[in-house]
């Protein structure tokens, strides 16, 4: 609240003087454009960035005076001229950078004449519409040069607001945000609900002129608040209007939230243009702004800031690959426990595999994402209970090399064997250590001894991959090789779970905005089940670290280091189709089980299971986040499948 006030009043004050008193505007402009150092202690840092010297201790008093000034200057547009003339000619103008005394002088000036709003400040006096982007840019060229808004001063980037076509409105108990005809967000102060809101809003938005050079196709106008979820805000929705009767001014966090998002966007652009000096300043600003937020937004902003910092300082995440994999396994376990995404992945994949294995007496599952093997107990149990009794079950697990020579894969296999023993399922296990899936060859994965297996029925193979295939996109040709290997093994079914996002686009900005939206939604969903006991909190924290590492990878790494190359279901469909696979529809059983599973989670009503052309997606509210799909080799005429097909 305070900051926006200062901006609006200061900006209006300065801008308003532009036509009337160029000298004043010049001074103001100079102040605004200059990158003021935060001088001595006690001066508020953020304001100093804008060119104002305000002591932190004075803040409360300054804010009060601003409110009074606001009241004094609010009013219908009819008398604007009078005030302008008065202010321009008869009053003594003080340097607005010393905000405290400036306010006093303004108040004393205005207490005499009727409270009016200078007309000329606003670019379009007629109508309700917010200034169109170019118009407002013109009006404020006095103190914002759009051309170098992003590259020179931090103040200009932060205060410029991008007006999207359909900004999301926000309904908040103390105030309302309304959409104007031309689009744009305004806040209505509780004390003056309807009429003056036009002028009021214009004067507020005045300073927030959209610079014409701002990010093309940025992620839409966003307002972030502490209480409602980010996801609902980032997605445009229909506007509603609520005029509050409470005489409250807008909550601080909302404005800071907007600024935070814009700081993130600006920093991304700066990083993209390799303007690391500006980016550095912005990263610090992001950190400061983020600390005032709460919940998911703060964390997401923090991780993105970390990613930017890594990029700027060229901090390559000390990739001790093997140590890294053990650590990420632990993180993934916590992620497994705290939210339903991995469980959903496992349950739906298992259901698809179970259906594919119907009627087969010998089954073989090859798991590309073995980790702790949490997917397989449920499958074994389901196999044990299927009509006709369990088949003999073989499992091949693929995993990365471990740091301390402990054979993690073997340990997992041993545990699974124990479980299989108790439920009387004939079980065989083999583990493969591989740095990358592309190192696998078909002969490794095939049945060892055809002789013994030949007399009995041949094996039916299923291949399972959870969040593994996208890493292959970091090296050209790797995915093609793996898909060829898969095809060579002739699986009955290939189940694949991947993140539903495009974090592999060419331009950095696209990748960044997509990732911002995606991870904000993810973190939102994590917040849903929060506030629980210590263990659950620890789980949540570790899950956030897990996601944070992905964020850093998306933002800071390039080339073969950037392994988090997520792609959407549509993109994967194209790839799989091109590699000779055809989709298998995941049945309704999986859908029902998944829905029931989600109903069990604390934040249950936020999660959504959807079926999209035979694939299942799990999302948070309207945004799908992960997708499970199943495939088989196109046109497979497997004689054994015809024989053993029970249908």
């Amino acid at each position, binding site marked *: 609240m305070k900051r926006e006030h200062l901006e609006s009043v200061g900006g209006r004050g300065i801008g308003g003087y532009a036509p009337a008193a160029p000298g004043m505007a010049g001074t103001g402009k100079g102040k605004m454009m200059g990158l003021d150092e935060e001088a001595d202690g006690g001066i508020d840092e953020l304001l100093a960035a804008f060119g104002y010297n305000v002591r932190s201790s004075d803040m409360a008093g300054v804010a009060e005076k601003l409110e009074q000034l606001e009241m004094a200057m609010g009013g219908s547009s009819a008398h604007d001229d009078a005030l302008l003339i008065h202010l321009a000619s008869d009053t003594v103008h003080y340097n607005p950078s010393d905000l405290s005394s400036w306010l006093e002088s303004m108040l004393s000036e205005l207490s005499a004449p009727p409270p009016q709003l200078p007309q000329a400040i606003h670019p379009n006096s007629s109508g309700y519409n917010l200034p169109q982007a170019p118009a407002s840019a013109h009006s404020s060229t006095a103190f914002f040069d759009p051309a170098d808004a992003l590259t020179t001063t931090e103040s200009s980037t932060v205060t410029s607001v991008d007006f999207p076509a359909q900004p999301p409105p926000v309904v908040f108990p103390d105030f309302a945000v309304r959409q104007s005809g031309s689009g744009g967000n305004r806040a209505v102060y509780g004390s003056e609900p309807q009429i003056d809101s036009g002028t009021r809003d214009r004067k507020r938005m005045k300073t927030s002129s959209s610079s014409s050079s701002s990010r093309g196709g940025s992620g839409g106008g966003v307002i972030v608040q502490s209480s409602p979820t980010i996801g609902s805000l980032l997605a445009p929705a229909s506007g509603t209007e609520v005029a509050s009767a409470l005489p409250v001014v807008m909550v601080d966090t909302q404005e800071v939230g907007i600024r935070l998002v814009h700081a993130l966007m600006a920093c991304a652009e700066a990083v993209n243009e390799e303007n690391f000096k500006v980016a550095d300043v912005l990263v610090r600003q992001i950190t400061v702004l983020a600390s005032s937020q709460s919940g998911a937004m703060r964390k997401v902003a923090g991780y993105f800031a970390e990613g930017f910092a890594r990029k700027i300082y060229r901090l390559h995440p000390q990739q001790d690959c093997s140590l890294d994999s053990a650590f990420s396994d632990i993180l993934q*376990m916590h992620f*497994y*426990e*705290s939210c*339903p995404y991995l469980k959903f992945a496992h*349950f739906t994949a*298992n259901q698809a595999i179970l259906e594919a294995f119907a009627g087969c007496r010998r089954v073989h599952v090859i798991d590309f994402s073995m980790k702790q*093997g*949490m997917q397989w*107990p*449920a499958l*074994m*149990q*389901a196999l*044990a*209970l299927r*009509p006709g*009794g369990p088949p003999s079950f073989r499992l091949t697990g693929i995993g990365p090399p471990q740091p301390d020579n402990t054979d993690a894969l073997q*340990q997992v296999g*041993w*545990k*699974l064997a*124990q*479980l299989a023993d*108790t*439920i*009387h399922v004939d079980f065989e296990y083999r583990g493969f250590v591989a740095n990358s899936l592309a190192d696998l060859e078909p002969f490794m994965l095939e049945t060892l001894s055809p002789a013994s297996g030949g007399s009995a029925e041949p094996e039916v193979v299923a291949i399972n991959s959870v969040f593994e295939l996208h890493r292959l996109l970091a090296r050209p040709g790797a995915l093609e090789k793996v898909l060829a290997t898969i095809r060579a093994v002739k699986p009955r079914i290939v189940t694949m779970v991947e993140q539903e996002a495009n974090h592999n686009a060419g331009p950095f900005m696209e990748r960044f905005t997509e990732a911002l939206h995606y991870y904000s939604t993810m973190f939102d969903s994590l917040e849903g*089940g929060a*506030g*629980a*006991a210590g*263990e*659950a909190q620890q*789980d949540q924290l570790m899950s956030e670290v897990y996601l944070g590492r992905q964020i850093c990878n998306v933002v800071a790494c390039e080339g073969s280091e950037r392994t988090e190359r997520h792609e959407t279901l549509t993109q994967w469909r194209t790839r799989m189709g091109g590699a000779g696979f055809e989709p298998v529809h995941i049945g309704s*059983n999986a859908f*029902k*089980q998944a829905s*029931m*599973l989600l*109903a*069990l*989670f*604390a934040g*249950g*009503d936020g999660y959504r299971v959807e079926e999209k052309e035979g694939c299942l997606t799990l999302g948070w509210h309207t945004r799908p986040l992960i997708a499970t799909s199943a495939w088989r080799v196109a046109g497979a005429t497997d004689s054994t499948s015809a024989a053993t097909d029970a249908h």
Partner: protein
Amino acid sequence: MENAEEEKERDNTRGYNINDNHDLLAEILARLDGPSLAAAASVCRLWHTVSRRDTVWKALFNRHVAADFPGTRAVVAALGGYRRLYCRCVGPIADRLAVSGEHATTTEAAAARLSLSLSLFSIDCYERLGDGGWQRPSSLLFLRSPVDVS
């Protein structure tokens, strides 16, 4: 006369005590619901022992999950028994789903609930195997309601 009647009554009651017949006690306890059964287990050592019989919990389980796969009993017994299954999975699941308004009315829904319970149970058993690498098996933590410690 009163004395005689009282004495006769006392004889009768003394002659028959529910605690004498454990199977009968088990039959009765098998008709209780989860919380009541837990309360019954706190009455005395005998009741504690009897109420821990798996048959009692199996009856409770069958009332909650109207479906049954052949061979379930063997699998459940192998994985740790109906009591554990109920306490860790079926009970909390039933509570959660009741809160969210779903009831296992159709056979399909019941079958789905059963398979979900068994899957989660098997995962939990799996976690408890081995040397306890993770501090505590916590894959089912999400089923427990958050405790307000304010």
